[in-house]
C-alpha cells in the first residue's frame, strides 16, 4: 500500500520533470539575457578580469560565493562536531 502510493508519487514527479525538460528552450539556443551579455561585455572594463566566470563568482555575485564558503564551513564544522572527542559522562 505504502509502496504503491510512493510509486504513484514517483511516476507523477517523473512525468513532471520530463515535461519540463522537453518544453524548455532547445539546447544551444538560450534566451538572450541582458545580464549575461553585460557580463561578457563589461567584465574586463569594470573588474579588470579576463575570466568572466571568476568575475561573476567573486564580484558580481560575490555574496553567493560567501554563502557557498559558509556552506562548506558549516559542513566542516558539522563533520568535526560529529567526530569530536566526547567527555566521559557523555558516552
Amino acid at each position, binding site marked *: 500500500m505504502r509502496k504503491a502510493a510512493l510509486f504513484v508519487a514517483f511516476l507523477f514527479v517523473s512525468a513532471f520533470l520530463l515535461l519540463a525538460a522537453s518544453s524548455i528552450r532547445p539546447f544551444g539556443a538560450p534566451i538572450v539575457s541582458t545580464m549575461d551579455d553585460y557580463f561578457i561585455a563589461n567584465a574586463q572594463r569594470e573588474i579588470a578580469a579576463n575570466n568572466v566566470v571568476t568575475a561573476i563568482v567573486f564580484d*558580481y555575485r560575490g*555574496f553567493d560565493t560567501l554563502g557557498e564558503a559558509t556552506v562548506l564551513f*558549516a559542513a566542516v564544522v558539522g563533520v568535526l562536531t560529529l567526530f569530536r572527542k566526547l567527555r566521559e559522562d557523555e558516552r
Partner: protein
Amino acid sequence: MSALSVHAPVLLIAIPLLGAFAVPLIGKLGRGVRDVFVGLIAAFTAALAGLLAADVFGRGGAASVYVLGGKPFNIPLPSGMTAPIRILLEVDGMSAFMGLITALVTITAIAFSFSYWKKRSGGNMYYSLLLLLTAGIFGMEMTGDMFNFFVFLEVTSIAACGLIGFRVWLGRSQEAGFKVMTLYTVSGLFVLLAVGLLYGEHGGLNIAYLAHGLTGGLIDKIALGLLLTGLAMKAGAVPMHMWAPDAYGEAPAPTSAVLVANSQASLYGLFRVLFTLFGITVSAATTGWILIGFALLTIFVGVTMALVQNDIKRLIAYGAVSQIGYMLLGVGVGLATIVAKPAYGLVAMQGGIFHMINDAACIGLLFLVAGAISRAAGTRDLNKMGGLAHTMKYTSVFFVIGAFALAGVPPFNGFASKFLIYEASFKLSPFLAIIAILSSILLLAVFVKAFQGAFLGPRPASPGGGEAPLGMLIPMAVLTLVVIAFGLFPGFFVERIVTPAARALWFGRDAYISAILGG
C-alpha cells in the same frame, strides 16, 4: 547611525557569519571569553534587526534595496526599465517582520544555551553552527535574489543538521540527522531546479525582475510546482512532514526553537514566491485552495499525532507542526479571497502572519521549558517524570502560559492571531473554522495531559531536581513577557508591524518590483 541603518540588511547576515567563523578561534581563549563574544554578537544582531524594523516600519513597510558590490547595479533596457545585474537585498515590511521573529528566537536560544551547555563537549562548534543557522535564516529573509535564497536555504540545512546530530552518543539523533539532511537536500534541489527553469525561461535571477517577466506559461507553472513542493517540504507541511518531529525532538532544546524559526523562514520563502514572484500571473484562488488543503492536513495530522506522544519534546514538536498549518490556513484563506474581497483577505493574512511571531514566541518558550525539565528530571518520557511543580515553580508557570497561548486560550497571544484566522476562514467556509477550532481544543487537551504528567503528582523521590538556574529562567521569562504583551495589546502590534507586513505581500507587489526595475 544612518550609515548603520543603510548597511543593516547586509550586516544582519555578515555579523553572525563573522561570529560563526571566529568562535572556534576565540573559543581557544576559554569558555568565558567565548560566551561573552557570542553574547555580544547575538545582541548586536538583534539590535540590528530592531533598527532595520524601526527603519522599514517607519516608512510604512516600503521596500528598501541594498546593492552588494556597488555601482552600477542595473542596466537600462529599451523599454525604459532597468535590469539588475548584481545581487540585491530587498527588505520590505514582511522581511523586516521575519527579521524580528528570528532575532527574538535566536537571542533567547543563545542566552539559554549558556547555562544549558555548561558541562558539554564541543561548545565552540555548537555556537558556530547556531550562528551559521542564524545567518542563513536572516539571509533567506533579506535577499531579493532567487539563487541567493537557495544558497542561504542550504546554509540553514547544513547548519541545522549539524546541530540535530550534535548528541553523537544517541543513535536516534544520528538517525534524525540523516533523515532530515536527505529531505532538506531534496527540497533544496527542487528549489534549485525551479530557479534554473526560471533563469532559462527569463534570463534573470532577481525576484523583482522575474516577477516582472513571468507570463504564467507551462515552464512557469512547473517552476511554481517545484518551489511549492520544495519549500512546503522544508517548512514541514503535512505530506512532507516526516522530518519535522525528528528534527525538533532530537536537536538540543534551544536549537529546536531556532529550527522553528528556520521552518518559518521557509514559509516566508513560500509566501514570497506565491505573492511577489507569481502574484497575479497564476490564479490566486487556486493556489489559495491548495494552501488551505495543505493547512487542514497539517493541522489535523499534527494535533492527532501529538495526542499519542509520550516524549515531551516530540509532543511539542507535533504541536509545532500543527501551528505551521494555522499559518498556512490564514495566508491560504487570504490568497483565496483577496481578489474578490480584499478586506477579508487582508484580515486572514494578518491572522496568518501575526500567528508566525506568536508561534515563534510560545513554541520557543515550550521548547526551552522542555529543555529545562528534561535536564532536571533526567528523562524526556512523560510517564517517568512527575511532581516537578513542587521543585520548579517558575518553570511550571511558564509551561502553563506557553501551552495556553499555543492552544489559543485568551488572553494570551495565540488567541489573538487564531481569532483573526477563525473569523476570516468562517466567512470563506464555516467548515474550515470548525476544524481549526476543534483542533485547538484538542491541542489544549494534549497539553493538559502533558502538564499533568510532568508537573503534577507526588514530589519526585530523587532529590536531583530543583529550579532551573537563573541563566535558563531569564530567557524563558523574556519569551513569556512577549507572549503576554502580544496577548494583551494585539491591536497595537497588528497595526504597527503585522499590517505593513501583510500589505507588503499582496498590495506591495508593484512597489517591490518598481523599487528595482524603476519605471
